[in-house]
């Protein structure tokens, strides 16, 4: 039997990516605390801006990216796209939780109470979080992995289109209570803008690293299950896969290798 499947194609990519991410985050933290001047009005509290807003932007981009990957999955019916869409949305949900928590900390700092309805980004994030919180239960509620992937992709595309719509509606309806420094990234003086950009890049790299890390872990687990099926195929009836929200990638372990060029991701 020729090589059953290409060796894992992830390892090296992950190593270089994580090194770059660590450097970027270190630089960002250095800039935030030692280089960026104190903002006139909010003073030191404004430093939260450099973590809250990048988290928010990356989470939103992640949700929309999850929708785009889902479109690709519906077009090509290739379960790997569904796996990517699942991981990206799963990660964006974690970043959205981070956004909500840092946002409420910021609200406590600047207006004295943990939740503020007048801040549009916070409010729309709560709605988006509530929507994407149903992604996992929806996947878990469908047994057939192929249909699970398809329904999840339909959800991801609908929710991906919902994200901007929700922002428009909430932004229109929220009275502006205070200067727009919290959300806006445009009218920042030079050094602040640089610091913000570096923090944004660092956050994006963190997102990419964690996604790749999870993809590798999931791929390894499905390879393992394929190996278990092949081995136990000889010994006893293979234990069927327990029902789970995680996409199932069928590694036809016995089947000839996929196109040699494309790594199995």
């Amino acid at each position, binding site marked *: 039997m020729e090589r059953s499947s290409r060796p894992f194609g992830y390892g090296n990519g992950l190593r270089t990516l994580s090194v770059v991410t660590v450097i970027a985050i270190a630089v960002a933290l250095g800039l935030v605390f030692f280089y960026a001047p104190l903002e006139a009005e909010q003073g030191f509290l404004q430093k939260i801006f450099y973590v809250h807003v990048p988290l928010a932007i990356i989470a939103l981009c992640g949700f929309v990216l999850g929708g785009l990957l889902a479109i690709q999955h519906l077009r090509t019916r290739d379960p790997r796209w569904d796996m990517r869409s699942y991981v990206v949305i799963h990660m964006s949900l974690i970043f959205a939780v981070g956004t909500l928590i840092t946002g409420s900390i910021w609200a406590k700092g600047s207006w004295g109470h943990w939740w503020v309805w007048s801040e549009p980004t916070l409010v729309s994030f709560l709605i988006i979080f509530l929507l994407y919180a149903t992604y996992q239960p929806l996947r878990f509620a469908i047994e057939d992995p192929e249909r699970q992937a398809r329904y999840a992709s339909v959800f991801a595309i609908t929710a991906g289109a919902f994200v901007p719509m929700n922002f428009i509606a909430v932004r229109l309806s929220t009275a502006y209570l205070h200067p727009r420094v919290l959300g806006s990234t445009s009218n920042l003086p030079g050094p602040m803008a640089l610091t913000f950009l570096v923090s944004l890049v660092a956050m994006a790299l963190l997102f990419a690293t964690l996604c790749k*890390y999870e993809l590798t872990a999931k791929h390894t687990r499905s390879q393992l299950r394929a190996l278990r099926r092949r081995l136990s195929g000889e010994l006893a009836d293979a234990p069927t896969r327990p029902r789970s929200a995680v996409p199932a990638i069928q590694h036809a372990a016995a089947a000839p290798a996929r196109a040699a060029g494309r790594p199995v991701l």
Partner: protein
Amino acid sequence: MLSVILSEVPALPLHTAGKYVAGAYIVLFAIVLIYVAIMAIRLSRIERDLGELLSMSERAGEPPASSAGQHSAEPTAGATGKQDPQPESTLA
């Protein structure tokens, strides 16, 4: 060297505002830590499964080398550098 940097740095006004800023960054750090912890648990589960499989393959009498021999531990040098274009280009 350290003293030079410390003298340069603007005094960090860690009064009330600092509490919240510290809180925010700790939250970010906590999220990443929790995530790494969960992945560590998964990794240990994978190792346990792998152990089971190894024992299984010995019981099946077939030496594991024949079936999984080609899986070199380290990704082969031959593999092209940029394995997977998708996640890295999340920014693009």
